[in-house]
Structure formats: C-alpha cells, structure tokens
C-alpha cells in the first residue's frame, strides 16, 4: 500500500488510514543490535476502521502504537497517514496510554480542559465539553479530584475522556480498559463502539481480551511473540450495530473461539521461545 492510495481515499471522506510499511524496531542499541521488538511489520489500517491488535505480552504492541503516535523515532520502514509520513506526535493521532499518564498536578477537569485548550477551544466551551466527557466515563462528582485521589480504573477513565474529548482522526488505545472491573468494562466497550459509530474515526486498539477485540473491532491483527510480526489479519463479519445481545450469537462465539486458538498458538510458542 502506498501513500497515493491513502490520498485517493481521502477524497471520499475526511478520515485517514494508517499505512505501516516494513517497520522494524529494536531497543537498547542505536545500531540495531539490541532487543528486536518489532520485525518487519506491514499493515494497512483502513480509514475509519476499528482495528484491534492482539498478541502475547512483550510482543511489541505498545511499541507499535508509540511508533504510530510519533513518540519514538522510526528506525526502519515508514508509517504514513493522510497527513504524510509520521515523524512527530500530532493532535490528529491521540493516544490513551496503558499506564494512563494523567497529569498528576491537574484535577480531572483540568486534565481534560488542557487537551481541549490545546486545540484552540475557548475556556468556557472547553469546560462544558470536558464535563460532557466526564459524565460519559461516569466520573461525575470527581471533576475536582486529583489523579492521586482516584482508583486505577477511575484514572484510566479520566485518561480516556481526555483523549476522546479532543476528537482525533486517529485514536490509539493501549489496553484502555485493562484496569476496569467487568461491569464498567462492558459499559465502556459499548460506549466506545457507539462513539466510533457516531464519529467514524480510525481506531487502533490494543487488548489481551479476545472477546473485547471481537466485540469492538472490524478487523483483528494477531501478532507473534517477540520479535513481533503480524501473524494473521482477520475480518470480523458482525453487524455494525452491536449491543450486548451479540455476545451470545453463534457467529460471535465461533469467531472468538477461532481467534482464541490463534492467540494461544502464539502464546505457546512464546513460552517455548523463552526456554
């Protein structure tokens, strides 16, 4: 897939895909002799697609998101969006980090307002929009709490609200629901799917949870154990409108089972590789 293809599609829609072309990454050495985390990743994430990344721990999922986000320099290969090659972070590619990364010196409200102000939104509107998103992630009443006063799951929801509020074209999420209890997790999944359907953005969603991936995504990439490679890319042929009822459908269960087997293969080869 080339840049030209991305640009062609952009005529039809304001969305943007992500073309990942031959990307490798190694840590610990400037000359590539350190730990190889990603090995020749080629992946075409379509515009407005909800794409889930599944893979064993340590396979490089976070690293791939950091590269797409432009947080760490690309050592080999290229990553391109409609805006061109990724070289630095930008507000059109916003991220929810695995470890939340809320500013601890700002309250929940101030954290969310911060991102909105950076988009050039005025103080009054920023605050009212921040409050909407606080309600959305069910943190009403905690607007003026500092992150240190919140549980892990609450901090995670506040971080999700901060990122969703700026309405990026590309939304990168690194196990965003990892710290949530099953109940809240389900609510947040439905909420995220609904937001995605309303606002139609490109989402790259990292998770360990096969059901979560199948419920949320249009396509799922399964990565191999380290060094991470894309092992399978699987289409999720489920209806666009997905409510709780879908979880009991035979197609949902079959697909989950199939993906679960593929993920397990990778996990087993990972544990073999460690001996």
């Amino acid at each position, binding site marked *: 897939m080339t840049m030209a293809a991305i640009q062609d599609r952009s005529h039809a829609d304001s969305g943007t895909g992500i073309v990942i072309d031959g990307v490798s990454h190694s840590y610990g050495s400037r000359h590539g002799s350190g730990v190889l985390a990603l090995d020749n990743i080629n992946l075409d994430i379509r515009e407005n697609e909800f794409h889930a990344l599944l893979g064993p721990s340590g396979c490089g999922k976070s690293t791939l998101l950091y590269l797409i*986000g432009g947080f760490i320099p690309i050592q080999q290969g290229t990553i391109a969006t409609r805006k061109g090659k990724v070289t630095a972070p*930008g507000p059109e590619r*916003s991220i929810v980090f695995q470890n939340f990364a809320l500013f*601890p010196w700002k309250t929940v409200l101030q954290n969310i307002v911060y991102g909105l102000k*950076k988009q050039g939104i005025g103080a009054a509107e920023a605050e009212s929009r921040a409050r909407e998103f606080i309600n959305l992630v069910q943190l009403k009443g905690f607007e003026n709490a*500092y992150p*240190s006063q919140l549980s892990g799951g609450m901090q995670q929801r506040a971080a999700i609200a901060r990122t969703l509020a700026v309405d990026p074209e590309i939304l990168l999420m690194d196990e965003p629901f990892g710290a949530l209890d099953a109940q809240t997790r389900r609510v947040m999944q439905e909420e995220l799917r609904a937001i995605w359907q309303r606002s139609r953005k490109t989402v790259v969603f990292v998770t360990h949870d096969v059901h979560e991936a199948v419920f949320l995504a249009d396509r799922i990439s399964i990565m191999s154990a380290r060094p991470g490679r894309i092992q399978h890319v699987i289409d999720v042929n489920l209806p666009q409108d997905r409510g709780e009822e879908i979880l009991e459908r035979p197609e949902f269960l079959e697909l989950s089972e199939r993906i679960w087997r593929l993920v397990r293969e990778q996990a087993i080869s990972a544990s073999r590789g460690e001996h």
Partner: protein
Amino acid sequence: MYSPILRYVPLLLMLVFWQLLTVSGLVPPEMLPGPLTVAGALWDLIVSGELVTNAVRSLSRAAAGLVAAIVVGIAAGLFMATFRPFRLLVNPIVQIFYPMPKSALIPLVMIWFGLGDSSKIFLIFLGCLLPVIVSTYNGARGVNHFFRWSAASLGATKWEVLREVVIPAAMPDILAGCRTALAFSFILMVSSEFVIAKDGVGFLISSLGDSGTYPAMFAVIFTVAAAGFAADRLYAAFARNQLRWREP
C-alpha cells in the same frame, strides 16, 4: 495526635536544663550565660534598635542572593535538562563546585567585589545557586516521558511541554532544592558577615564576641536561629500548599 505545641517540648526542656546548669554553678557564667540573662540582653538589643537595623541589613542581602540564585538556578537547570550541549558544558563544572564549601571563597570574593554589599550577595548567590541547579536538573530529567508524550499528542509545542509539563512535574524537586538554598542563604549570610562587614547580624555576633559581651552575642545567635527556623517553616507550608496534588 501529635500536636504542634507538644512537638517543641524538647526545646523547652533544653532551656530548663540550661537554666539549671548555670544556676548550679557547674559552668562559669562568662562561658555560658543563662537563658534569663540572654533574654535580658536580647531585650536591650531590641530597645536600642541595634538588632533590628542589623537584621534588616542581613536579611535583605540574603534575600537578594537567594532570589537571584533561584531565578538563575531554575533557568540553568531546565536548560541543562533540555539542551544537550549546555548540559555537557555545565554538568562537570556543577559537579566539581557543588560539594565545595562556598565560605572558602570569601577571601577571593572580597578581592573581586570589595567590602560592600555586593561581595556578600554574590557569595550567597553562589552558595544557593548550586542546590537549585542540581535539583531542578534532576527533577526535569526525571519527568515521566508519558507526561511529555501526552501533552505532545494533545497538540502542545516543545516550549509548551517545557512550561506546562516539565516545570510542574519537576516542581517537587525544584521546591526541595530551594529549601536547601534557603538554609544555605542563612549560613552564608552570617559567615560572610563575620569576615567582611561593617554591619549585619554576622558582624554583630563577631564584634560582641570580640568585646566579650557574651549574653548579647548569644541573644543575636538565637535570634538568627529563630529567624532561620521561622523562614524554613513558612517555606515548608508554602511548598506543601504548592504540592497539594501529591497528597492522596
């Protein structure tokens, strides 16, 4: 709970012990005047206005040196943390000068700046500068990169990341460095005035000592100690208020 008044009971006990020691006659009063004698001398110094004028002279020197050190030190520490060539240039110099007692520079500073205010202010500035630089630098270097990345991905420029993320994230270290600097400013204020001054509390202590007026000398020493203590408490309350977000 541990009440704040209860916390200072040991100080009271020390005063009582000291009074008993002088009353008992175990220590000659010219070596160690009793607390009541010292309190009397303190009253005289206050009434004559001598203590206040000298204290104002000293404190204004300390404040000038300290404020300059905080401003320059924070700027230099941030610059070191963000700009590699500057770090490579300045870091070894800072490391060599940090552990050196700045009072050793008194004779040199006297040659450079003469006997006026500037020599004392410069010495206080030098002594306070290094703890501020080192703590600002360490704090700024230690900022969790996820904070910087978050701001950048929300659209902050490099300058905004520095101002809105690095500085507040490093604030606990910066404030701790300034607290060390505050203590140094008191130490250097007195020790520089011992050597090079015609007024100030350090000068007062040494001239009262030379003339053998020990109760008054003790009175000035305790005043300096009390002022230093009060400044530190005030500062600690200010810092705690700035760092409210850290408290769970």
